[in-house]
């Protein structure tokens, strides 16, 4: 049996039916990581011993009926910015290269309660700052579909790991597109839920008002199952929202009749790759054939999203990252004279270039004399963008958009021009600014063989609408319960050589 080819929910069923043991599934995944990791580098840490121990324990709980959920016994991975008690949590940074948290993030606890076998922690852009997973202190992650290309970022490790079958699903975090963009580059399904749906407790903050944890999966069913597992009201997170509808798997019906879908004309302008645009129009046509009403419209304010996002996210990051100072945990410079010299050297040595760039940008926009001109203006822009979406959702249930202007760029091409890299976030950041849910699903491949993703944006708390549309698309294109195309381990190794 092709154990690795199964989706998370399929594996869960087979485990329950005793066709596959949790240990066998875990061993298969660990074997895959052993052969793939030298080429892909999805993980910062692989906890082989711990995973096997968890597998045994979870098998017992499944056998005695304690664990009955769809994901019980299914191996998963977690982005390295979520705390797991006693396990290295680096955020892709040197400054946390020795940091082991004293507690576990709420979303991860939810996975553990559901019987997830946690394989390890996935690679990421340092502190989730980047769109390529090249800013990690632990080296770049490669795109499993073509190893000369990046997997996207910042959740590049989580997306590459799912695509390369190094786990059945993973958790990513999305501050400005960090789940949706790498999902589109790696040909997997990734969702950023409505702000407040998944607890941020234990997620090392980048932009607190924008950060949200979400699932990265092989298909839409898995996406619903994982979201259902990790979403919860958490009194430890003041921005957590108590919702009525945590039963996301119930949204998996093949029906988009009458669903109103809007395509913002202002997203399909110059800068958007022709092949990407065509793939999305083709996908829109599929949904139309299934009974959805598809129209184009003007969303407006699109050009202001990037500056507003980088001002707000960097401002929050500049403050959030102050705690990494060499005093309490993490890296401390070897030699120093006095407190301030220790701070300076620790942070200069501990942070990479992109993180420093954003700390400086964020500190600048919060400085006295600039606060009104930059930070306040960005907050006002954020409110206007939210209003533009509110208006759009009066007419539409779903907004269709690209997840990125192109397919995955080649390694080393993006960081040389940070402005260009920032601009490539154009389709994703406004969703975070407005706190909305967004999903990216694979809708084909470009001529270069790299996957193309389509983003669907919903109104606040309308994840079910997104899941229903995504599920309908998947079924209509024959993708139901079919994981997106990926390259098996043997081929990967061969190509690299």
């Amino acid at each position, binding site marked *: 049996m092709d154990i690795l080819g199964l989706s998370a929910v399929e594996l869960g069923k087979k485990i329950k039916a005793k066709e596959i043991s949790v240990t066998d599934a875990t061993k298969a995944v660990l074997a895959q990581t052993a052969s793939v990791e030298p080429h892909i580098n999805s993980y910062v840490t692989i906890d082989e011993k711990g995973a096997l121990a968890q597998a045994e324990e979870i098998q017992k709980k499944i056998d005695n009926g304690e664990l009955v959920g769809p994901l019980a016994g299914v191996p998963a991975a977690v982005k390295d*910015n*979520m*705390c797991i008690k006693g396990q290295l*949590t680096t*955020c892709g940074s040197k400054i*946390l290269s020795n*940091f082991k*948290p*004293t*507690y576990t*993030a709420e979303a991860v606890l939810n996975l553990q309660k559901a019987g997830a076998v946690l394989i390890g922690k996935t690679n990421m852009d340092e502190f989730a700052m980047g769109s390529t997973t090249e800013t990690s202190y632990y080296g770049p992650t490669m795109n499993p579909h073509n190893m000369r290309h990046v997997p996207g970022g910042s959740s590049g490790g989580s997306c590459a790991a799912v695509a390369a079958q190094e786990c059945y699903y993973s958790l990513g975090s999305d501050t400005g597109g960090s789940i949706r963009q790498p999902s589109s580059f790696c040909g997997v399904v990734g969702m950023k839920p409505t702000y407040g749906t998944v607890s*941020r*407790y*234990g*997620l*090392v*903050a980048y*932009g*607190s*008002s924008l950060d949200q944890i979400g699932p990265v999966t092989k298909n839409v069913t898995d996406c619903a199952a994982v979201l259902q597992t990790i979403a919860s009201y958490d*009194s*430890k*997170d*003041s*921005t957590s929202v108590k919702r009525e509808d945590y039963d996301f798997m119930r949204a998996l019906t093949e029906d988009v009749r009458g669903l109103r879908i809007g395509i913002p004309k202002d997203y399909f302008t110059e800068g958007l790759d022709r092949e990407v645009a065509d793939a999305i129009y083709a996908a829109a046509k599929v949904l139309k054939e299934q009974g959805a009403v598809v129209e184009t419209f003007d969303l407006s304010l699109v050009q202001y999203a990037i500056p507003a996002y980088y001002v707000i996210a960097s*401002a*929050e990051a*500049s*403050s959030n990252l*102050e*705690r*990494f*100072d060499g*005093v*309490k*945990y993490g890296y401390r410079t070897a030699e120093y004279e006095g*407190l*301030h010299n220790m*701070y300076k050297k620790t942070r200069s040595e501990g942070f990479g270039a992109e993180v420093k760039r954003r700390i400086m940008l964020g*500190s600048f926009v*919060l*400085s*006295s004399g600039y*606060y009104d001109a930059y*930070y306040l203006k960005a907050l006002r822009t954020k409110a206007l963008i939210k209003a533009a979406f509110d208006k759009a959702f009066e007419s539409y249930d779903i907004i269709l958009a690209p997840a990125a202007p192109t397919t995955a760029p080649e390694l080393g091409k993006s960081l040389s021009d940070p402005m260009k890299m920032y601009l490539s976030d154009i389709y994703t950041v406004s969703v975070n600014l407005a706190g909305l849910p967004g999903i990216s699903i694979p809708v084909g491949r470009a001529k270069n063989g790299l996957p193309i993703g389509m983003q669907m944006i919903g109104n606040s708390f309308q994840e079910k609408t997104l899941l229903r549309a995504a599920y309908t698309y998947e079924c209509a294109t024959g993708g139901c319960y079919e994981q997106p195309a990926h390259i098996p381990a043997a081929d990967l190794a061969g190509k690299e050589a």
Partner: protein
Amino acid sequence: MAKQYETVIGLEVHIELATKTKIFCGCSTEFGGAPNTHTCPVCTGMPGSLPVLNKQVVDYALAIGLATNCQITQVCKFDRKNYFYPDNPQNYQISQLYLPIARNGWVEIETNGGKKKVRIHEMHMEEDAGKLVHDEWDDTSLVDYNRSGVPLVEIVSEPDMRSAEEVIAYLEKLRMIVQYLGASDCKLQEGSMRADVNLSVREVGSDTFGTRTEMKNLNSFKAITHAIEGERERQIELLEEGKAVVQETRRWDDNKEHSYAMRSKEDAKDYRYFPEPDLVPIVISDEWITRIKSQQPEFRTEKLERYKREFDIPEYDAGLLTESKKMADLFEATTAICKKPKKVSNWLMVETMRLLKDNNMEPEDLRFSPENLAKLIDMADAGTINSSVAKEVFEQIFLNDTDPLVYVEEHGLKTVNDEGALKETLEKVIAANPQAVADYRGGKEKALGALVGQTMKAMKGKANPGMVNEMLKEMLKD
């Protein structure tokens, strides 16, 4: 003629709130405790931890804001104040800048110069920092985060005070209000109330302010008074010499009774304040305000009037008793048991005050129970013990909350009311003091006192002085 100068003073007062748990986590606020035992991921700034507001902090802040006649900001927010220092685990303090919970209030103070309103600019909620411990032998510093996250309010006054006397009156007024509300014990020595003094001087008649300095580390009313006087003189001296006052922060050294510059305005930090994204705005409804208002206790003025009316206590006494909530509470509780308001008032105003002073304590430090004081009063009233024994026993109650019944029994301090035994002693005293007896009989009333004293001494203080007096007079009749 020498120029006349006026001192202009505004205060920033930090008050530690009496919540059981910290402002943004469930850790205990209890004073003391081994270092870093009252801590968790939140108050030690662990990555990924998030603050959750303790609603009791808002209740207390609201109560103080309402009691100081402030306008309540019904949608208020927290902001981050960014600065690097190891006592601050996140390197930012969660405070309020843009929308503090209360603004534009006032309190009335009374000094020898009469009554006056001191305006309050604003009051905000914030978290306290940890404590640094410097190990000089090892040349290292250690951090204790037990205090990190203890809730504070900061009350910022307008520059309305003109003398140390007014400053002390203002602080005493604030302290009394806050103590009456039960929102804090306001102990300067322990740091649960801290005042920073902003001071400038100007020529009398000038309507512009001079350059001000800010003084920190003032741990007692005495230090505040001395620091104000010293700083006023320092600034006047500078101006008289034609020099300028530099805007700076100065630190008071209590041992040297002198302040020295900590940092000037040029070194002033840019705190890069911005709204705290991890906390949602606090919406204070009309109902919330009404609830807090309805829970406001009886304040001093009302209490004072009631004492005069209900217990027939003189104005002066009622004033003393209500000066501290603790004292007033003790008075009412004890009176409720023994029903002798005047006697209770006497014990509190005379012996209690004396012992407080002797032991260098504040009324808030009082630990004895009203039951024991009531018992003592009843015993003295019944003549079970005489007044000098009662004072001795009260000292035990004051220090150890001793049960007076047990103490008197164990130490055999009961008044001897046995006429036979007393008569025997009196006869001996009369026989041993012929001169005093002769003096008394010769018309020197005072001589009787000496005989009473001798008798009490012989009876080891246990005699009933009234009885001694009467019997002596009787026996000395010709």
